[in-house]
């Protein structure tokens, strides 16, 4: 090897490079975009779940209303049924049809071993909260923009 041809070690060269502006901008944009997208995604998720919860809540409310209406009707129907099954009505009807109270001496008694006493045919407790139905507001408070426009064009109605 020829030492003369060996390059001498010289002072270290410092080469300065400058990142291209478009790269910096792209990176900043990317970081910003990621942040925005992340925020947007979070917000979207929140809005989505919030909307779902709201919709479920409204359905629950509607169901509560329906349940209460039905229970209210059941309660009233029980009374109506009891009126139709009134013991006085039965007694009057029996007399009308010519029936007479039975003399126990004419009855046939049969001994049934291990018979169980009849339990009352009871319709269970009314355990659920009842809430009144339907609170109405003026249409102006509850209609959409479109409905309001249509109503206004048709000539109004109540305020």
């Amino acid at each position: 090897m020829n030492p003369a041809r060996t390059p001498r070690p010289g002072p270290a060269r410092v080469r300065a490079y400058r990142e291209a502006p478009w790269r910096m901008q792209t990176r900043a944009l990317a970081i910003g975009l990621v942040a925005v997208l992340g925020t947007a995604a979070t917000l979207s998720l929140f809005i989505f779940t919030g909307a779902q919860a709201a919709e479920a809540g409204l359905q629950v409310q509607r169901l509560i209303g329906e349940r209460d209406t039905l229970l209210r009707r059941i309660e009233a129907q029980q009374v109506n049924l009891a009126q139709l099954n009134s013991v006085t009505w039965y007694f009057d009807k029996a007399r009308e049809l010519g029936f007479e109270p039975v003399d126990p001496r004419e009855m046939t008694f049969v001994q049934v071993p291990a018979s169980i006493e009849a339990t009352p045919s009871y319709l269970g407790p009314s355990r659920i909260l009842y809430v009144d139905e339907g609170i109405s507001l003026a249409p102006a408070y509850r209609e959409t923009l479109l409905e309001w426009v249509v109503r206004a064009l048709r000539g109004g109605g109540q305020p």
Partner: protein
Amino acid sequence: MTTALGTRVKIAGAVLLVPLAASVLQLARFQIWPSQAREALYTSPYPITRHIETPRGRIFDRNGGLLAGNLSHFRVYLDNCQTYLWAQETLAAGNEEPPPVTLARVLAEFMQTTGVTINIPGVTQSLQQLDQTLREQTQGRQRLRTCTLAVDAVEVAGQVQAIPLWLEEGQETRLRIAQGELPDANGAYHYNSILGDLRTEAWFARDYPEASLASEVVGYSRQSGDRAGDRGENGVVRFYLETGDWGVESYYNDILQGAREDILWTVVPVEITRNMDRAQPPADLLLTIDREIQAEAEAILREGVEAGEASRGSILVIAPHTGEILAMADYPAADLTRPEGFEEVFHTKGRLPNDPQGQVTSLNVGAPYEPGSIFKVLTMAAALDSATVTPDTIFVDEGYFEYGGVVVHNWRSRPFGVQDMTGCMQNSINTCLAWVASRLGPQLYYDYMDRFWIGRASGVDLPERSGDLRRPGDLDWTDSTLATNAFGQGVSVTPLQIAVAISAVANEGVMMAPHVVRSIVRPNGVVQPVRPVALSQPISARTASTLNEMLARSLEVEQSAALVPGYRVAGKTGTADIPPYINTKTVASFVGWGPVDDPQILILIRIDEPTSEGDRQFGSITAAPLFAKLAPRVFAILGIPPDQVRQQLAATP
């Protein structure tokens, strides 16, 4: 490079626009396109105060027959009331331009739709006055915003009060059809804009499907709105508090009373579940009353009172082994569907010689009386139990007996001669029982009366009034009191008190606590049974058995009208004068039980003031036959075979 950057920026912009566009679309969808969720919002404005209520607890007979339940009826409100009042004023002022819809027009349309009748001028005027008052009080800042519709407005003690308007369910349905909320019979929807601001509010109303049956036991729940704050701004009662007036409705009021209040009602959708089940519902009650036995008892009582031309009467049927009250009948009975008739009925029950204006809701637990000869059962029980006498002890009756400075006579001063104790009971000899009590002595006699709970309330789960028994040491007690007490004079008891005391004879010496509630059904479905409890054991089982036999035999020897074919029964008649003994009126009574070898029922019959024609003032003539009529029907309903059949069944291996 510039081109590439532009493309990227556009892409980034497009990406950013996506969520924005989605948000705008969502807003547009919510605002413009109707959706189910938004429709639900119609009925949930925010914020609101809502009226909540639970129905009052129901009352059933022992077999599940409904005795007290709840119906719905509806209040009617007019929202935005101020605009209709303004229209009314504008019309009255005679302005040229006719106002859109007046209050009177709304009311007229409402009447036509629902079929109810409203005094339109009166109601309109009262609402205008209220509006005016409100404006004056607030210097014009407030007006009447929601009006409660009324049937009429009347002036009571200088104050205008509205007569509430209640819609039945059918009427309310017609209103909702007219408002377009429900389809008509053909499935078509209509919308009457004049009725648009009317809304209804459902309330429960107590109802008694059996009308007068067991009304004395069931009681009545009265609506009242007299508490402070009960009346709304236009004078209509806002809250009706249901409170039991008498009977089970009163005694168990705290258990039966449902929640009824206004609460803040959240309408934030995600919080809606907080609204659920906020009010504690009441419990239901199952009574010991058997409605068939009750109906039989009431029918027979009515016949008995009419046949005896009496003023009133009562029948009590209890199960001696458990203290359960199977029937409790009064005549006259209050018809729970006709509250306007209550006063007359209670007056008839309460009209006694010393209290002609009295009011009594129940003869069986609220009207003490002098029991007369049926009280002799207790005197004889005490004497037998203390071995003061035996059934064979002889008493020679001369028709009178002197004790403590007074002379006791028999009915019509008749002497019965030589009698054993069974004969004394059979012939109901006053002198004999006074003699027996004198042998017992005051200390022992009143000790026994305490054991029988005489002079004390029985503790039944009903509003109860106790009778009275004077004892040695009391100011108005003298030696002669002992002699008269012995045959049921100078002592007062309610029919229930004396029936419970005598039930010891029918239940091996043990008195069971009387009760009318068999079980309480809690809102969570848990059934809480009421267990039979012994009150005391005043006499031994042996004494009870002996006296049981004596009283059965005395009925048989006498050939009493109370005898029941097929069943051996025991019992005692009673004919009591009515204090202050100024006329010949009596209380005729009979207490009987059976079958004697295993008493399942005890019946006490009380007939007040029967006529003396045909000796109908006597218990043996007026009350005893009613026992003979009622007992076999009760046996049949309870499935208790005649003695012979029972013995055959028992002998069958």
